[in-house]
């Protein structure tokens, strides 16, 4: 971006954003849908979250505009991810036009031809990175996979384990997540869920916990039934096993954060077996929703040991307390590869404690539940 005055773009963007991110995004989408009505179908009926997402992405792009090393991988991921919405290379100029019209609209007298030309050039680079990455995988990978629900197993009133079947295997790595769209219940709403089994087959086990008001989690746990259709997006996430490492493993999971751990254990059983400690935490005994499966794994694999801790249920005879604390108290993990997955609070507390105990930052990989 040598010829582009990025400082001027940042300044202009700040001035535009001062009108209120939601206002700006509202104008953008209205302009886009007015000029290019065919794009409306890619978006959900309710656009509130979508506007937040757009603003978030724009802020991130503008913030990192001088940092191509950070920005380009993000844009490539974003471009690949957009394929599942039905985004084609041809849609990018339309979005660019809407973006420029929006910026000009909110800039008022501050708008100059130079600013317009710089924004257009910057957008071409962004769109190029996104659509380039999308085109690169288009030949080898579908934009999405249609799936059918085979079973919804309600373990508690707000936790369900779903088995879904695709026509062809989804090429995820154990530990990665897939965006899931309940095609009928909440069209065009996509949220990430993690397969709990090893890749390679057409059946995928998904663990869903209902988040109050979360459209997709509510649909998966309370609405969807056997036979309903889902769409699955391409795999994402960097919490995966490193085949090169032969360090023993520590896995710390809170609630449905168990799913990636189960997938990785299944993967380890098939490939290299590494000494693995799995710590699973839940609030109550009932919410330890996968105890039978964990007990079976614990029995079957000599290299695996499973500890379940309950934080808020006096009936439990095993370890009591927050799972991160329980795990940290039970050993010196400084020579382990560590995976942490759970609620944002659980992940933050667990990672903090493990770092304090001497586990190096680069040995810890973690994922948080998103809003779903």
């Amino acid at each position, binding site marked *: 971006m040598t010829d582009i005055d990025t400082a001027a773009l940042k300044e202009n963007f700040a001035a535009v954003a001062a009108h209120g991110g939601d206002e700006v995004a*509202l104008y953008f*989408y209205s302009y886009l849908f007015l000029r290019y009505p065919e794009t409306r179908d890619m978006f959900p009926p*309710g656009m509130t979250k979508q506007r937040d997402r757009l603003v978030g992405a724009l802020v991130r792009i503008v913030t990192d505009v001088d940092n191509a090393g950070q920005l380009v991988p993000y844009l490539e991921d974003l471009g690949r991810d957009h394929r599942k919405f039905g985004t084609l290379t041809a849609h990018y100029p339309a979005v660019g036009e809407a973006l420029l019209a929006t910026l000009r609209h909110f800039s008022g007298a501050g708008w100059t031809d130079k600013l317009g030309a710089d924004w257009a050039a910057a957008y071409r680079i962004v769109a190029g990175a996104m659509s380039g990455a999308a085109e690169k995988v288009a030949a080898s990978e579908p934009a999405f996979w249609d799936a059918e629900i085979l079973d919804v197993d309600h373990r508690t009133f*707000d936790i369900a384990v779903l088995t879904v079947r695709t026509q062809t295997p989804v090429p995820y790595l154990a530990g990665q997540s897939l965006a899931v769209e309940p095609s009928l219940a909440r069209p065009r709403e996509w949220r990430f869920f993690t397969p709990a089994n090893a890749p390679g087959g057409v059946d995928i086990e998904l663990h869903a916990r209902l988040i*109050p*008001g*979360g459209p997709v989690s*509510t649909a998966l746990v309370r609405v969807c039934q056997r036979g309903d259709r889902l769409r699955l997006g391409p795999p994402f996430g960097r919490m995966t096993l490193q085949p090169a490492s032969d360090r023993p493993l520590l896995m710390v999971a809170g609630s449905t954060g168990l799913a990636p751990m189960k997938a990785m254990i299944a993967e380890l059983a098939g490939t290299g077996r590494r000494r693995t400690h799995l710590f699973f935490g839940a609030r109550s005994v009932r919410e330890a929703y996968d105890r039978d499966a964990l007990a079976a794994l614990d029995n079957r694999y000599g290299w695996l040991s499973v500890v379940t801790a309950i934080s808020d249920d*006096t009936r439990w005879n095993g370890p009591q307390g927050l799972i991160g604390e329980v795990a940290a108290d039970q050993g010196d993990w400084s020579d382990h590869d560590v995976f942490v997955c759970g609620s944002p609070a659980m992940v933050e507390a667990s990672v903090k404690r493990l770092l304090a105990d001497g586990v190096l930052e680069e040995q810890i990989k973690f994922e948080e539940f998103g809003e779903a």
Partner: protein
Amino acid sequence: MTDVTSGVPGGITGAELTTATFATSKGFGKSGYEAAEVDEFLSRSAAAVDRLNAQLTDTEQALADARAEIQQLRERVDRDSQSSEVEQAVTVLTTAQVTADNTITYADDYSARVMAEAQELYDTTRRNATVLEQETESKSRAVYEDALRRVAALERENEERVAELTLSAEIAQEELDGQTAYLRTLRDATRIQMEKFLEGMLDHLSEQYGRAHPIAAQAANSAVPGAAAAGISSGNNARRTRRNQRVSGRSVTVAGRPAVAGPDRRRQGAADAPTIPPPRSPGRSPSQVDRPVGTSITD
């Protein structure tokens, strides 16, 4: 400049101005250009400058007009994307989207509220259930332990009773055995004494009266062999046995008496009787004489 004026009819060019030549005056004492030619050239030049000035003004006006038009057109092009119609349409769409968003947000909020309440209810119920479960568990454990304690106490009591009963049964048996032994000893001793007494009596009788009545003495002698069959240890002769047989019915009565007389008699008897009682077995040396006695006691 040259080009500008070249097209002007009757005009004058720069080249003409620089290369203009005039005829020399031919009058006596005069030298210079022909005045008429110069005048004519100047007037043509003046006219050309006037026309050029006028044309310049027109051109400048046309240029300004064109510029204004371009500006107008450009502004219209810009406005096209921000024209009032577009602005209106964007506003309408925005309003519609906001309305839809509000409706959906309301529905999602409602769902969130309901689910949050359900979650809270679930948690409360779970905690209550836990408390109840624990109470029930501790109560049932108390009942169970109490029952266990009672069962243990009853068992202990029963064992004690059984032990007691066993003990008293043993005592009773021992007592019975002792009495039986005593009675047997007494019987045997009495029998011997009686035999001795009767033998003495018979001897006495045979001595005193046998000589007077030989038949009686003969009868006394023939009665003795029966006593040997009764298992009497002392040496007997045929005569004594016969006599003994005759008095055996009385002997039963004598032997039976102490049997109902109680322990006092036993102790007393123990002193009188042989110290080692005969074996208790009912099968011992059966005899017609003592069978009814032995049977009645051991049964």
